[in-house]
């Protein structure tokens, strides 16, 4: 399956990446499994994605880390929002 992964703010800066397109062998995974896999890319990735305040969204909705990711999904990681 193919998924898009986006990073914002502090997380984007830490991993020096705005967006990734990933080809995965599995037909589905979870946000937690994706975080673990991305964490293997290096200490900066591991640290950014294991931050206790990290927020994750799938298809533009905030989800828990147990959320299942399917083909075509858009996943995003970011810190708490500070708009308005």
């Amino acid at each position: 399956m193919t998924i898009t992964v986006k990073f914002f703010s502090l997380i984007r800066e830490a991993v020096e990446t705005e967006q990734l397109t990933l080809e995965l062998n599995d037909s589905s995974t979870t946000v937690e499994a994706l975080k673990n896999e991305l964490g293997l890319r290096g200490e900066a990735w591991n640290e950014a994605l294991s931050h206790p305040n990290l927020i994750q969204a799938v298809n533009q909705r905030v989800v828990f880390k147990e959320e299942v990711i399917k083909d075509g999904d858009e996943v995003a990681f970011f810190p708490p929002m500070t708009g308005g």
Partner: protein
Amino acid sequence: MLVHVTDESIDPGRLATGFYSRHPDAAVATFAGFVRDFNDDGHVDSLYLECYVEMATRVLNDLGNAAQQRFGLRAWQIVHRYGEMETEDPIVFVATSADHRGEAFAACEFVMDTLKTDAPFWKREHSGDEGQWVTVKDVDKDRRERWSTEGLDQ
């Protein structure tokens, strides 16, 4: 256009004028936020507001609809700027209209309190060569939380 998320400058006066002319309802509340030139640490020269645009549009639409339902609004509008801004630039404009002022005020405040913590925007303040991401304020968390608590009573 109920929700507009844009990196171009916004004009709250024009937005208010348009809203009033489309919705001359008994009670119309608005909120406009402008880039402040200070924070807890001192002076601020400019602001970069990062945005996850597609998600922000969706979250603000859901929020406006939730406010409409919860407070019986006749109409609402939410406009949010992102990108590079100078101090005194408008960032956000919210308008709500209802048959009674209590509902219009509460809905406008509900939208502002909720978008602060739920819409995907991130502020980075610049002062001279220094830049710093803004962290979530406890007061914002508390203000957001009020609406959840009150929600249980309704």
